């Protein structure tokens, strides 16, 4: 009976200790953490092509979207879509907090376009978590700019409007 109790306690305690140790190691080194959701998980209907966004940016009034870059600030500083704001890296918890703070005062029907362009589309770790956050916050009019390769190739080199600076 006593042996059984020890065995049950061990069965409960050992996985708990291992889980706690794993979490601590992940927190310290970022090892083995689950990869962020891929951009490929974003529904096709929510994607916006560069030429479409370029047209929208020339529009006046309500149809002009709020464009938010949710990737690297260093890349943003080198070049970003004209009029875009930096809103934090979607793959980082602090980045998502920054995005949440930015959109908090906005009406839920606000037309928002998210983009990153850090990496080839299927490898981008930033846009999917950012899109998911806005969806969960109730924003229903959110599109994600589809940049197949990166911002340089798919936006800057095509001559679409850009700005520099942080």
């Amino acid at each position: 009976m006593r042996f059984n109790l020890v065995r049950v306690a061990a069965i409960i305690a050992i996985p708990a200790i291992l889980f706690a140790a794993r979490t601590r190691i992940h927190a310290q080194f970022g090892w083995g953490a689950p990869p962020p959701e891929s951009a490929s998980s974003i529904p096709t209907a929510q994607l916006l092509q560069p030429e479409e966004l370029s047209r929208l940016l020339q529009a006046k009034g309500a149809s002009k979207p709020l464009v938010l870059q949710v990737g690297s600030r260093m890349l943003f500083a080198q070049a970003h879509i004209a009029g875009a704001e930096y809103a934090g890296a979607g793959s980082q918890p602090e980045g998502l907090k920054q995005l949440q703070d930015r959109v908090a005062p906005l009406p839920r029907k606000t037309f928002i376009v998210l983009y990153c362009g850090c990496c080839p589309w299927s490898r981008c770790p930033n846009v999917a978590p950012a899109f998911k956050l806005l969806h969960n916050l109730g924003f229903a009019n959110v599109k994600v700019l589809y940049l197949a390769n990166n911002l340089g190739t798919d936006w800057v080199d095509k001559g679409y409007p850009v700005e520099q600076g942080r």
Partner: protein
Amino acid sequence: MNKDAKALSAHRQVLAALLLATCFAAGAQTISLVGKKAPEFTRRDFSGTRINLAGLRGKVVLLDFWATWCASCQVEMPTFVQWQRDYGPRGLQVIGISMDDDPALARRMKAKLRLNYPVAMGDEKLGELYGGVLGLPLTYLIDRNGIIRAKFQGETDLKTMEQQLKALLAEP
């Protein structure tokens, strides 16, 4: 308004439009540097050692712009470690430039991947110097004379890169 005034006004409008277009287009364009002299830079790597590109004349330099959020970069980097080990004695020097916003993340990744080559932090100025680092991974191969001979952007066939690297190492 007389004819001269109208012409002057039209001229000013055209000039303003040109200036506006220049503001949008200049600076941020990605520029091809292949065949040109590699822009010089000096940085301190994570161990505090000075990296001076000009001081690496005579070596073939693989200059890798990467970041911790770039999954494709992390696929390539263990191969660069291997190449540094295998081709280092033949004159290869790999240099990593992290484009992370947070140096602590880059330091951790360097330790995790056991990078055996110097890694320094980049910034937008260095990015612009290299034609605009507007997407990762981005790797340049620089020959022994300091000339950029190849640029690889995005997911790259590492066998192709290795062939070009070996060809550069074979050059005097």
